[in-house]
Structure formats: structure tokens, C-alpha cells
């Protein structure tokens, strides 16, 4: 019920999130792949690894820290953009709440929702950092 996505008003919001949060992950992942030492590629060539093996045994383990720093940036952008997107699409959501109270003239409530958005953003960032610690062992960026 709550997560009944792909309603009419949800599609544009989700599209905006996809389009905006794509880039930091993509660029960071590409950077991570480019930073793989050439020795690793040589090893792959010597062992005659298949394409799939190269991905699972060389690319993924050595780019995981880069992917996660990209994901942290992306999630920050996504959470930033959803507020703006919901101001325009309306209906439900915290962004709509901001728009609603702004139009009523309750600036104090805008400040209140600002605090809520900030806290949730902090929690989301820590969530990704926690998953990273679980998978990689240590975080690349200080949270």
C-alpha cells in the first residue's frame, strides 16, 4: 500500500531520481575500473579467464570501494532531488509537505521539515556506510 509505486504521480519522480543519481555511481565505478593495476589484467590474460570471471573475480572486488563512494553520493543526490520533485508532482511525501506549509505561510514548519529531511539524509548515509563496512571491511570516506 505504502510502496504502491508506479502510480501516475510517482513515475516522473522516480524517473528524475534515476536520471540524477545515475551519474555519481557511474563515474565513480568507471574511475575504479580504470584504477585497477595492469598486473591484474595480465593475470587475467595468463589464466585465460572468461569475461564473466574477469568481472566477478577482478573488477568487482577491486572496484567495490569506488562503487560505494559513488553510491553514497548518489543516495545523497536522490534524497535531495526527491524533495524538489515532490514539490512539483504534489500529492504525498515530505517534499509535498514542505510545499504545503510554505504556501500556508508557516515558515517555522518549513524549518521543522528541514530538520526531518536532514536527519533522514544522515541516517541514509550511515546506512550505506554500514553496508559498505559489512561488504568491504572499512569505509573509504569518513561519515
Amino acid at each position, binding site marked *: 500500500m505504502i510502496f504502491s509505486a508506479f502510480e501516475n*504521480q510517482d513515475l516522473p519522480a522516480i524517473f528524475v531520481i534515476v536520471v540524477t543519481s*545515475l551519474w555519481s555511481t557511474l563515474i565513480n565505478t*568507471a574511475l575504479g575500473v580504470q584504477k585497477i593495476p595492469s598486473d591484474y589484467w595480465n593475470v587475467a590474460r595468463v589464466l585465460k579467464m572468461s569475461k564473466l570471471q574477469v568481472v566477478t573475480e577482478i*573488477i568487482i572486488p577491486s572496484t567495490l570501494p569506488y562503487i560505494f563512494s559513488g553510491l553514497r553520493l548518489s543516495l545523497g*543526490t536522490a534524497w535531495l532531488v526527491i524533495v524538489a520533485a515532490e514539490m512539483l508532482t504534489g500529492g504525498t511525501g515530505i517534499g509535498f509537505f514542505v510545499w504545503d506549509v510554505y504556501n500556508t505561510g508557516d515558515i517555522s514548519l518549513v*524549518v521543522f521539515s528541514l530538520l526531518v529531511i536532514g536527519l533522514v539524509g544522515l541516517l541514509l548515509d550511515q546506512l550505506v556506510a554500514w553496508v559498505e563496512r559489512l561488504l568491504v571491511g572499512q569505509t573509504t570516506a569518513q561519515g
Partner: protein
Amino acid sequence: MTSVTPIEKKKANNVAKFIGKVLGRGGENIIFPALGFFVVLIIWSIIAKLTESNLSKLPTIEKTIQDSIPYLQNFFSTTTGDEGIFFLTLYSLGRVAIGFAIATIIAVPLGFWVGTSQKASKAIKLANPFLPWHGYPLAS
């Protein structure tokens, strides 16, 4: 004299270590964030004081707390059209989760490809300064 087994001692040591890690040296992990928050509150109250006579004034801290109390009491309300903050945030989080999952599924394999191919990394240079709002279809 009470006897303390080595295991108990080790456990107590671990708990003390964990608390020490959370607090930091001399409690610096708690004190300095609290100090920073306090400074922000002071700046806020100063600006609120300065803009008091303006038409578009910054609300004071007391007014903000007073106004948000009904919304905090209404936190878990599920009434349609008057949802509590909790469910509004959950709606937003649901959208973010779906969008972020799709973006990750697209971006990570694409990133692998772009990283390994020279031509693809040149092609992505164009998309690098892609501005967030250029592809936005406004819903009616």
C-alpha cells in the same frame, strides 16, 4: 574479596572499550558535535532576532518548536490527506528506494563497461555535466 573470572573481566573490558570508542578521547565525539549544533542554534536565534521586524522573518526557535508539536503528536497518523510526517517520509523513501535501485542496476554494469572501453569513457564525457532538470517531465 569477590572473585572475577577472566571471561567476565574480558567482557567488561570490551564494553569499556566500546564505550570509550563511542565517546572518543575525553568525550570529544559527543562534546564537539553538540558544540557545533549549539553554535548553529545561536546563529539561528541571532538571525531571527535581526529579522524580527521584517515582513519575511525567520521564525524563532521557540516558535518552531511550538508549531511542530502538533505535527510530532500526529507523527504516525494515517488519515488520508492528513498523513503524519512518518508516513510522508516513508512515501518519499519508497520512491527514493525504487529510483536508487534502478539507478544502481543501470550504473554499475555501465560503469564497468565505461571503465574498460576508451570510446565509451569519451562518450560519457558529454553526459558528465548533465543537469538534473533537463529531462524532467512535469506532471499535470
